[in-house]
């Protein structure tokens, strides 16, 4: 129980920071000073306190969506242990079933897309439509990736996969793992609406996806939506760091070990954020209809990873 | 005395020559055909109740056994029902000025003559006389086919008489060879050409001559039955004849011709000891007829010729069943003869009502039958499903048994082809015909049944067809199994 509460606090607490880091990296690369890495915390707390403007057209779906999206995303977060310590893995909610994880995220996405359509605005519909395409194109790659990792550990539970990774010396050197790692990075970029798939910083209708869906939101509803998005980003990052870059050395027992693990975890996700920031800086946004090519590459790679696991890995 | 039924139609024909009033003609026609039906039914009842021995009755050249009784019953029962229908039909035609009083009388005279020739053909044991009777059926019905005296009907009648006469001539050649094959075996002149004696002595007949004979008889009577590619007269005649006559042709006439083939087939099979030679021919003609019918039905434009093709198909099925020549298959074939007769007559009679309402034979010009004529329409659409072999109607029960018997002989390819062709025919019927039933009735046509008494006949027939698919009474089973024994050679 304690781990679950810790998990909640860490995930929700750290999530906005990642956005801050990425933005900072981009600012630095553009020789700007940029906002503070904690800017998103300020934004959220400000938004929480603001009044809301709700469209006349909107129905209860619009009102409920932020809560459902946030609730389901955080619920999904409970399935992904942030630290691969033994106690933490064991207490992961329902063993962290990968399929439940995927379909719980899907619940959030479903309501997000509906919310986009609810106000009758063209932007919302456009965002939903695009989100639908991107997420469905990446779903198979993600699934094959998780299946392959699951096969390596003999279980579809995320915590078992992480335990397996921890047991491996340097898992990312395993061919199957390398391939799946690339797949997961692509999934991360796409699912969290980052360049080259989407540009979270722009409000130009030609390119927006996630921002378009939540365009009508304001106040605390917007805050919840933004927070949910960053939580989602963090949990996929968590998945990546714990699967491919686990802590392979033994941690001291007891509270100290846990604290150390948390610290190491924070460091790793921050590093990953820096990496993502660099990727964002180095690439340009793809034309929307080139995204399927990226997805196809991800799918082929995932399949390749699966075959690799069978031919070489077993 | 039992053969008195033969006299009834003759008497009627003679009486009708002197009766002028329409009403009397109708009454006489119906009551006489009822009488005829009752007589034959009583013969049947006697035969059924009297056990094995009494299935056969013989008097001079006349002869009845369970097989002939079945065909005879079909003729008289349908004769009666078609008489009733014809009364309403002719009355309406007469009122609408399509025909005159004289033609009504002519119609009933010819109808009764036609019935007489058919019952004669199944009541004799001499193949020669059977041939004469079957040839006479053509002659009696040719004016019925050309009844409306229009260009098309005349054309149909001409084709009918020419093709059938030539075909039947072939059968006579076959009968001559049959006779030749028995030289030295049958010594008494009164035995000559009797299929009873031929069957009894079948084993001693000359095989090669018999083959030759069978082949000619198959072509000859096959023309009348409508085996492809000898079927060509059939669609034309059926589509042009007045509907009661089409019903008679399809439901009854084809059976009497088939009767002739089956009788010879028995002799040949006993003689040859196996069914390879003749059976193969029958199976070939059966499958070929079904195939041609299936292909052609897909693009039919006239509903009556479509039904005619369906008759070709069903004759093919019967040939197939008989050609397999096992007790089960012959039984199924006999069942099919009965079911096909009733179902097809029902269908042709309903087309009569449709034709009288819509005045067109083209499928594309007809819409909304179900709304216009609830009874005929419903009977027709369900009848079509029945004829296409949909449960729970009688035809399905037969087709199931026919296919089962084919598969039982391990003719897997034949059986599969047949089954697929049935489905194709079903598709053709649905595709071509079902559009007639739906949609709105054209404004020029007022709703209602054109032939009230006819509608009753249709319902009666429908009940028979439905019941045949659900239940078979014991006496019928006995009769059929006895008849299949007869065909299998136990004469």
């Amino acid at each position: 129980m304690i781990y679950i509460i810790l998990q909640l606090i860490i995930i929700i607490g750290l999530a906005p920071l990642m956005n801050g880091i990425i933005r900072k990296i981009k600012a630095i690369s553009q020789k700007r000073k940029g906002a503070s890495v904690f800017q998103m915390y300020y934004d959220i707390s400000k938004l929480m306190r603001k009044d809301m403007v709700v469209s006349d057209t909107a129905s209860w779906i619009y009102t409920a969506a932020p809560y459902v999206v946030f609730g389901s995303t955080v619920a999904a977060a409970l399935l992904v242990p942030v630290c691969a310590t033994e106690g933490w893995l064991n207490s992961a909610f329902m063993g962290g079933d990968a399929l439940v994880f995927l379909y719980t995220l899907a619940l959030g996405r479903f309501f997000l897309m509906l919310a986009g359509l609810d106000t009758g605005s063209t932007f919302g519909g456009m965002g939903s439509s695009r989100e639908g395409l991107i997420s469905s194109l990446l779903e198979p790659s993600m699934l094959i990736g998780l299946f392959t990792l699951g096969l390596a550990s003999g279980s579809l539970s995320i915590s078992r996969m992480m335990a397996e990774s921890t047991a491996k010396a340097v898992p990312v050197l395993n061919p199957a793992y390398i391939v799946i790692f690339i797949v997961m990075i692509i999934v991360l970029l796409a699912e969290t609406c980052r360049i080259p798939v989407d540009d979270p910083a722009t409000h130009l209708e030609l390119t927006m996806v996630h921002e378009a869906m939540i365009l009508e939101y304001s106040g605390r509803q917007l805050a919840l939506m933004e927070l949910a998005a960053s939580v989602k980003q963090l949990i996929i990052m968590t998945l990546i760091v714990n699967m491919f870059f686990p802590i392979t050395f033994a941690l001291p027992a007891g509270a100290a070990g846990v604290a150390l693990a948390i610290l190491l975890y924070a460091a790793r996700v921050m590093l990953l954020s820096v990496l993502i920031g660099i990727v964002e800086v180095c690439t340009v946004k793809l034309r929307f209809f080139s995204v399927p090519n990226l997805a196809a590459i991800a799918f082929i790679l995932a399949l390749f990873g699966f075959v690799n696991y069978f031919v070489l890995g077993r | 005395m039992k053969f008195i039924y033969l006299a009834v139609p003759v008497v009627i024909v003679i009486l009708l020559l002197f009766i002028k009033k329409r009403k009397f003609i109708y009454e006489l026609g119906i009551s006489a055909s009822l009488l005829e039906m009752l007589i034959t039914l009583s013969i049947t009842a006697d035969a059924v109740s009297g056990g094995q021995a009494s299935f056969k009755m013989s008097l001079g050249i006349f002869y009845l056994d369970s097989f002939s009784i079945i065909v005879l019953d079909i003729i008289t029962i349908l004769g009666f029902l078609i008489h009733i229908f014809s009364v309403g039909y002719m009355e309406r035609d007469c009122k609408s000025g399509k025909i005159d009083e004289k033609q009504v009388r002519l119609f009933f005279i010819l109808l009764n003559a036609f019935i007489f020739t058919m019952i004669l053909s199944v009541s004799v044991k001499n193949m020669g006389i059977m041939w004469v009777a079957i040839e006479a059926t053509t002659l009696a019905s040719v004016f019925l086919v050309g009844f409306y005296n229009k260009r098309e009907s005349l054309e149909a009648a001409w084709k009918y008489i020419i093709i059938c006469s030539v075909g039947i001539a072939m059968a006579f050649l076959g009968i001559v060879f049959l006779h030749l094959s028995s030289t030295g075996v049958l010594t008494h002149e009164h035995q000559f050409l009797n299929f009873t004696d031929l069957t009894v002595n079948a084993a001693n007949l000359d095989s090669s001559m018999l083959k030759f004979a069978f082949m000619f008889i198959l072509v000859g009577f096959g023309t009348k039955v409508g085996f492809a590619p000898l079927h060509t007269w059939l669609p034309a005649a059926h589509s042009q004849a007045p509907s009661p006559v089409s019903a008679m042709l399809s439901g009854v006439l084809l059976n009497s011709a088939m009767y002739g083939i089956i009788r010879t087939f028995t002799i040949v099979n006993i003689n040859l000891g196996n069914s390879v030679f003749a059976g193969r021919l029958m199976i070939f003609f059966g499958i070929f007829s079904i195939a041609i019918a299936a292909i052609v039905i897909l693009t039919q434009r006239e509903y009556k010729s479509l039904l005619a093709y369906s008759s070709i198909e069903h004759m093919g099925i019967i040939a197939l069943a008989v050609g397999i020549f096992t007790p089960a298959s012959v039984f199924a074939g006999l069942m099919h003869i009965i079911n096909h007769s009733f179902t097809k007559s029902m269908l042709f009679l309903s087309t009569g009502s449709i034709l009288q309402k819509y005045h067109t034979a083209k499928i594309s010009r007809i819409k909304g039958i179900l709304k216009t004529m609830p009874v005929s329409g419903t009977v027709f659409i369900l009848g079509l499903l029945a004829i296409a072999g949909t449960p729970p109607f009688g035809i399905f029960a037969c087709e199931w048994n026919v296919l089962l018997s084919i598969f039982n002989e391990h003719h897997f390819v034949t059986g599969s082809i047949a089954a697929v062709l049935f489905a194709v025919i079903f598709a053709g019927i649905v595709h071509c015909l079902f559009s007639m039933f739906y949609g709105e009735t054209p404004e020029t046509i007022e709703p209602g049944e054109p032939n009230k008494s006819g509608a009753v006949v249709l319902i009666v027939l429908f009940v028979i067809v439905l019941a045949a698919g659900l239940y078979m009474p014991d006496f019928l089973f006995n009769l059929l199994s006895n008849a299949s024994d007869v065909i299998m050679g136990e004469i």
Partner: protein
Amino acid sequence: MTTYMDIISLLILVSSFVLVANKKQTSYIKTFRIQSFLIALSMAAIGFRHFQQNGRIDAFILCALIIGLKVIYIPNLLNKTYDKVEHKVEKDFYLNIPILTLLACGIAVFVYFIVTGIGQFDNRDITMQVVNMVSVVLIGIFFMITRKKAIGQIVGFLVVENGIFGTAMFAAEGMPLIVDIGIFIDLLTGVLIMGLMVFRINDKFDSINTNKLKKLKG
């Protein structure tokens, strides 16, 4: 006796060839008359033999019937019909005469090939006659196929009837009398009906060219 029969049957066959080679409708009828007469002749011969053997006169009755019906009545009837319908000058047959006769010849050869294969016909004295008569039947049909006018078809049909009657006569020395009589009744009615229909066709179509009866397709 056999030789005599063979010769007559051959003559009957030849008359069929002549029929196929005919061009005019009236000459069809003439040829048919001759052919029927030949059949009556052979019937008479058989009748004599029967009479000598067991004093039966069945065959004579038949012979008289043939002469009455086929030699006199039916040809006359056809001639009358022919006179009453309209005529246009047009070719009555498909292909041309030499080819038609060749094909007819081919049919006869084919029949010879087939019939001699039948066990019973190996070396019987009726073989030749049966071959000829079966050929007559088939040539009759062939004739019907090649002639356009209704009269030609009736004649063809009659030739077919001649052929089957001839087969019965030569091969089996006639069928039971009742059958033969039945055949005659049928034949007579048939020809009457056909004749009647020729009038009607002539009425409705202004021609007796059966090639025009092509409305009922498919």
